[in-house]
């Protein structure tokens, strides 16, 4: 091998090493973002269930509605405690069921208006709406982080050099968390 080839080879190796170290740092950041957004997700969904449970036991709603909401919120909380921040299918199903229960309870504007008429009702509605909104948003943010991470992990060089180490492939969290129309701000 002549000097030119050696130099070129050396430059190539340097470039590859630079690329790999940059990508490793990038991947590290993305994994961190996935972890923090997952922990936010856990916090916000527990908050949401607790908020619904608090409203159900506040005596502000009729007993039938209260019972439906309390049951769904309790199931979501139980699943949330069991599965940690994993969001396994059972947890996702319980959270979706809670969304549906809230949607049925506040499906017509009258329930919300009734709450707003009670003293301190406005704060109750605001807190509930805000916790539901925050949960939905944190899932969007989490899934966005997961998708960014997966895009890098699919790259050939990343797989070839095992830059992700032993970190498991993150997965998006799919469940129904739509904010009921009556609780939306616009």
């Amino acid at each position, binding site marked *: 091998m002549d000097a030119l080839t050696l130099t070129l080879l050396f430059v190539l190796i340097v470039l590859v090493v*630079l690329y790999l170290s940059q990508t490793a740092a*990038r991947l590290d*950041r993305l994994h961190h*973002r996935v972890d*923090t957004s997952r*922990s*936010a997700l856990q916090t*916000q969904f527990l908050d949401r269930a607790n908020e619904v449970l608090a409203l159900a036991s506040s005596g502000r709603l009729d007993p039938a509605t209260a019972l439906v909401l309390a049951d769904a919120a309790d199931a979501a909380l139980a699943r949330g405690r069991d599965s940690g921040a994993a969001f396994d299918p059972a947890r996702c199903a319980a959270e979706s069921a809670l969304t549906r229960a809230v949607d049925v309870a506040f499906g017509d504007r009258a329930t919300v208006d009734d709450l707003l008429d009670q003293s301190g009702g406005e704060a109750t509605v605001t807190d509930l709406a805000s916790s539901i909104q925050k949960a939905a948003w944190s899932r969007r943010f989490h899934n966005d982080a997961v998708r960014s991470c997966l895009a890098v992990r699919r790259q050939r060089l990343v797989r070839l050099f095992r830059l992700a180490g032993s970190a498991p492939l993150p997965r998006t969290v799919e469940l129904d968390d739509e904010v009921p129309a009556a609780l939306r*701000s616009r």
Partner: protein
Amino acid sequence: MKVGIVCPYDWTSPGGVKAHVHDQAVTLQRFGHEVSVLAPVDDDDYPLEDFVVDGGQPVSVPYNGSVAKVNFGPVSAARVRRWIKEGDFDVLHVHEPASPTLSVLACWAARGPIVATYHSSQTRSRALSAAYYLMQTAMEKISARIAVSEAARQTLVKFLGGDAVLIPNGVMCAPFEQAEPLPGYPRTDPTVFFIGRIDEPRKGLPILLAALPGITATYPGVQILVAGPGDQGEALADLPEQFRSHVRFLGLVSDQEKASAFASADLYVAPNTGGESFGIVLLESMAAGTPVVASDLEAFARVLDDGRCGVLFRSEDAGSLATAVTTLLGDHTRRQQLTVTGHARARQFDWDVVAREIEQVYESVTTTGERVENDMRGQLVGRLARPRDEV
């Protein structure tokens, strides 16, 4: 909460994003947050608000087919890092980060909870594709993305990848609710208000002037009150002589005069022909209680809740506009009704409501208690620039 906000565009010249950042900062401060805004400052004589930190003088460069004023280079990068270090923020909020501005520098230099707001709807720029790798590294750090409109969200999804939640532009309702009419208003004859650059066809003044003869047929005393900069003679060139006395120009108006002009008019007309991604002026009119007649652009239809809170006419159709205006001027009940529904609609977009939602996004990304710090990992250029600033 300590919030650091980056405004990408010159703080000393008027603009939509700058106004947004200003109102956001003021409202968050009113909610009890500690806010610092980093922004380029072109005019050194401009009296900076005490929450604004000078991000340096922007430089004019050709970018993406036109001339843009931007900040870049190691000096700007060092300023950004110092601001991040001294600010010790809970959240970093950058605006329009997909452009060569302080915003992308801030994303690049920081780690921790970063929120980004995307304002524009645009087609993919060549420059962006070229710098894709560097930009992407910065973009990937953003923990939460906000789009101010569905169009801006679509742009993000299509060209940059990733998703965003929708939090619209805000409007400060109070100044419009409290405004007094201009001297001599309201007149006994109807007044129709227009605001926007009068020599920019997209703002639609030619459409309104083309509709004027049709309106005068029913309302011979009608006045078109026009606010906005531009050549007045040129604007009237196509209008037959006998109708010109129906038009009154106010020229460039202050915020206060604008609010008063809304309060002086029976109707506000937004005849824009395109290029509007939101329609903040419509909300200002509704806040003032002045019914809106607007072209049926997607963004306008959205703000007017598909015609529930204002009247839509066929875009670029002067006949359709003339009919809409004369019908509404003749229907007092409908106008009163629109004043009420319009005002309620504007209230949904009040900065108090919008900033609460932004606050909720902050809460969503700060649950782990991490703070915003300088980030040096895997950043060659960052490392090189570091000694100038931090040693």
